[in-house]
C-alpha cells in the first residue's frame, strides 16, 4: 500500500458515513432506499474498519495531516492501536445496529431522518476516535452529541423528552467545561496537537494550573462517560428511545468518553501523577458501587441494563486509575468485551419487548418455555456480563483485578469483586422474572407477534445471534485478543511511541 492509500483508509471511517448520510438525505422521502443504503453503509463501514485495523496492526501508527498543513500546526488524524480497536468496535456496532434497526424502528421515526442521523453519529464517533487534535476532538464530540440528541428525542414521547432534557443539559455543561479546558491548555502551551501538548505540558512552569486543567478534563469526560457522581443523565435517558438507539448509545457513546479519558490521561497529563491516579480510583470505586446498587433497585429491563453501564464504566475507569501498562491492557479488553455484550443485552431486551410489548419485569414471564433460543442468547450475554468463566467477561474482570493486585490496591480490587457478585444478582433477577417465572397471561402484543412473517423474525434475531457469536469468539480467543490489548497497553503506557509517530522521531 502506498502512503496515499493508507491515508485514505484512515479517512474513510469519517468520510463514508458522511457520504452515505448525504445520499440518504437526498432520498429523504424514499424509506425503502434509505433502508437498503443503511445496510450497505453498515457493511461497508464494518469492512473498512477491519481493513484499517489490520493495516494498523501490520504497519504501526499512522498519521494524516489534514489539508497538507505542517504538523503540529494543522489538524491531524492519528490511528494507533487503541484508535484502531475502537474504530473496529464502532464498525461492528454500526453493522449490527443497521440490521437491527430495520425491524425495530417504526416508520414514523424512520421518516424523521433516523438513518442519516445514525450515519452522522457514527461519523462523529469515528472522528473522536481518530483525531489527534484537542479542539477537533471537541468538534467531533459536538457532531456526535447533536445527532444523539435528535436520536434520543425521536418519536417525541413524554418520557423521551424528559430524558432528553436531562441528557442535553448535562452534556452541554460538559462540553462547555471541555471547551474552557482546551482554551486554558492552549493558553498554557500554545498548541492543540495532542502529541505536541504531551511534550509541552511537561515544560509549563505552573504545574498547579496543569492539574486544574486535568481536573476540568476529568469532570467533562466524567459527565460524558457517566461516572459517579455525574451519571444521573444516563439511567434517566437510555431506556426511553427506540431500542436500536438505546443499544447503540449503550455500546458506543459512553465508551467515547472513556476512550478520551484514556487518551488524555495517558498521553497529555503525567502518567505517574499520584494525585490524578488516586482521584480516578476513588471515582471508579463509587461508580461501580452506585451503578450496581441502582440496578438492584430497578424493575425495568432496560433500566437495569442502563444502571449496569454506569457500574461497568467504573471498572474501565478503575483500570485507567491503576496506571500501569498491564492495567491499560485489561481496561482495553474490558471496553471491547463490554461494548459487544451490552449491545447484545439491549438487542435482546428489544426482542423481548417485540414479543411481550413491555419492558416491565413484573408483567413479563414465561419466555424460557416459549422461546428457549432467545433465553439462551440472553443467558450467554448475562453470564458474560457478570463474569462467569469461561466467557470473555471473566477474563476482563480477572485481568482488571490482577492489575490491581500487582500494585497492591487491595481495597479497590475487593470492591470490584463484590460489585461483580451484585451484577450476577441483578442478571439473575432479570432471568427469574422475565424468563423463568410462569407466564401470567398472554398479552395482546404476543398474538400480534405470532403473525409476523418468519423472515422478519429471523431478521430480528440475527443481529443478536451475530453478537453472541462474536462474544463466543472473543471468549474462545481471549488469549490472542488479550495479547493485542497488551501491545496497545504498552503503547498507551509509553506515550513516546505516539509522540514520535506524530512529530517525527527527535
Amino acid at each position, binding site marked *: 500500500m502506498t502512503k496515499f492509500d493508507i491515508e485514505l483508509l484512515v479517512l474513510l471511517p469519517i468520510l463514508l458515513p458522511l457520504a452515505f448520510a448525504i445520499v440518504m438525505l437526498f432520498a429523504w422521502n424514499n424509506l425503502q432506499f434509505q433502508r437498503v443504503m443503511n445496510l450497505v453503509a453498515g457493511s461497508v463501514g464494518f469492512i473498512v474498519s477491519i481493513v484499517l485495523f489490520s493495516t494498523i496492526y501490520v504497519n504501526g501508527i499512522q498519521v494524516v495531516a489534514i489539508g497538507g498543513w505542517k504538523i503540529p500546526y494543522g489538524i491531524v488524524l492519528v490511528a494507533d492501536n487503541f484508535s484502531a480497536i475502537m474504530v473496529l468496535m464502532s464498525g461492528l456496532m454500526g453493522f449490527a445496529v443497521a440490521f437491527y434497526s430495520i425491524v425495530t424502528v417504526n416508520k414514523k421515526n424512520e421518516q424523521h431522518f433516523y438513518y442519516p442521523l445514525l450515519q452522522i453519529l457514527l461519523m462523529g464517533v469515528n472522528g473522536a476516535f481518530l483525531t489527534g487534535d484537542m479542539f477537533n476532538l471537541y468538534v467531533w464530540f459536538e457532531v456526535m452529541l447533536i445527532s444523539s440528541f435528535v436520536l434520543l428525542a425521536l418519536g417525541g414521547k413524554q418520557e423521551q423528552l424528559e430524558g432528553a432534557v436531562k441528557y442535553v443539559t448535562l452534556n452541554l*455543561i460538559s462540553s462547555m467545561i471541555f471547551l474552557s479546558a482546551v482554551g486554558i491548555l492552549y493558553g498554557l502551551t500554545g498548541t492543540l496537537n495532542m502529541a505536541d501538548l504531551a511534550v509541552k505540558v511537561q515544560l509549563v512552569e505552573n504545574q498547579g494550573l496543569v492539574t486544574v486543567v486535568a481536573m476540568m478534563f476529568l469532570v467533562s469526560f466524567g459527565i460524558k462517560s457517566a461516572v459517579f457522581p455525574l451519571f444521573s443523565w444516563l439511567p434517566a435517558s437510555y431506556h426511553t428511545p427506540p431500542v436500536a438507539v438505546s443499544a447503540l448509545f449503550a455500546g458506543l457513546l459512553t465508551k467515547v468518553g472513556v476512550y478520551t479519558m484514556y487518551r488524555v490521561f495517558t498521553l497529555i497529563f503525567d502518567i505517574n501523577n499520584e494525585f490524578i491516579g488516586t482521584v480516578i480510583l476513588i471515582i471508579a470505586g463509587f461508580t461501580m458501587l452506585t451503578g450496581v446498587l441502582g440496578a438492584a433497585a430497578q424493575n425495568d429491563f432496560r433500566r437495569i441494563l442502563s444502571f449496569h453501564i454506569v457500574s461497568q464504566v467504573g471498572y474501565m475507569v478503575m483500570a485507567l486509575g491503576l496506571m500501569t501498562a498491564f492495567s491499560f491492557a485489561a481496561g482495553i479488553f474490558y471496553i471491547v468485551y463490554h461494548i459487544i455484550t451490552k449491545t447484545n443485552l439491549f438487542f435482546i431486551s428489544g426482542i423481548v419487548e417485540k414479543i411481550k410489548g413491555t419492558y416491565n419485569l413484573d408483567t413479563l414471564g414465561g419466555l424460557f418455555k416459549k422461546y428457549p433460543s432467545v433465553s439462551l442468547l440472553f443467558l450467554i450475554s448475562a453470564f458474560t456480563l457478570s463474569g462467569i468463566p469461561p466467557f470473555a467477561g471473566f477474563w476482563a474482570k480477572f485481568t482488571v483485578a490482577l492489575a490491581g493486585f500487582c500494585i497492591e490496591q487491595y481495597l479497590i480490587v475487593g470492591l470490584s469483586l463484590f460489585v461483580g457478585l451484585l451484577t450476577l444478582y441483578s442478571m439473575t433477577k432479570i432471568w427469574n422474572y422475565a424468563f423463568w417465572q410462569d407466564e401470567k397471561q398472554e398479552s395482546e402484543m404476543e398474538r400480534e407477534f405470532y403473525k409476523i412473517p418468519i423472515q422478519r423474525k429471523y431478521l430480528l434475531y440475527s443481529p443478536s445471534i451475530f453478537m453472541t457469536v462474536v462474544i463466543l469468539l472473543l471468549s474462545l480467543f481471549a488469549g490472542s485478543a488479550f495479547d493485542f490489548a497488551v501491545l496497545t497497553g504498552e503503547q498507551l503506557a509509553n506515550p513516546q511511541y505516539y509522540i514520535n509517530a506524530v512529530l517525527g522521531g527527535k
Partner: protein
Amino acid sequence: MTLLLAIVTGILFTAGFYLVLRRSLVKVIFGLMFLGHAANLLIFNIGRLTKGAPAFILEGNQTAVEPYAEPIPQALILTAIVIGFGVQAFAIVLFKKAYQMIGSDDIHSLKSTDRIA
C-alpha cells in the same frame, strides 16, 4: 481590559451555573447560553487583547511584531459559536416541546424517567 474581561467571564460562569441549577426550564436554557458565552470569552481573552495588531508577518521578518493578537483562539471561538448556535437552537426546540408536552415549566415535574416502574 484583560482583567475586566476576566471578571466578566467569571460573572458569566457564575450566572450560568446558578441559572442551570434553577427549577425553571427557561432559566436552564439561559444558563446554558451564558456558559457557552463564558467559555468563548475565556478563549478570546487567552488569545491576548491588542488593538489593531493582527498577527501579520511583515516582509523580511520571520515572526510577527510583538505584541499581536493570536489568530488561533479567535478561529476556535468562531467554530465554537457556530456549534453553540446549532446546539442552543436544538435545545430551545426540545425544551419548548417538552414544555408543551408536560404542561409545566418546572423541572421538578420531569419525574417520569426516575420513577421505579
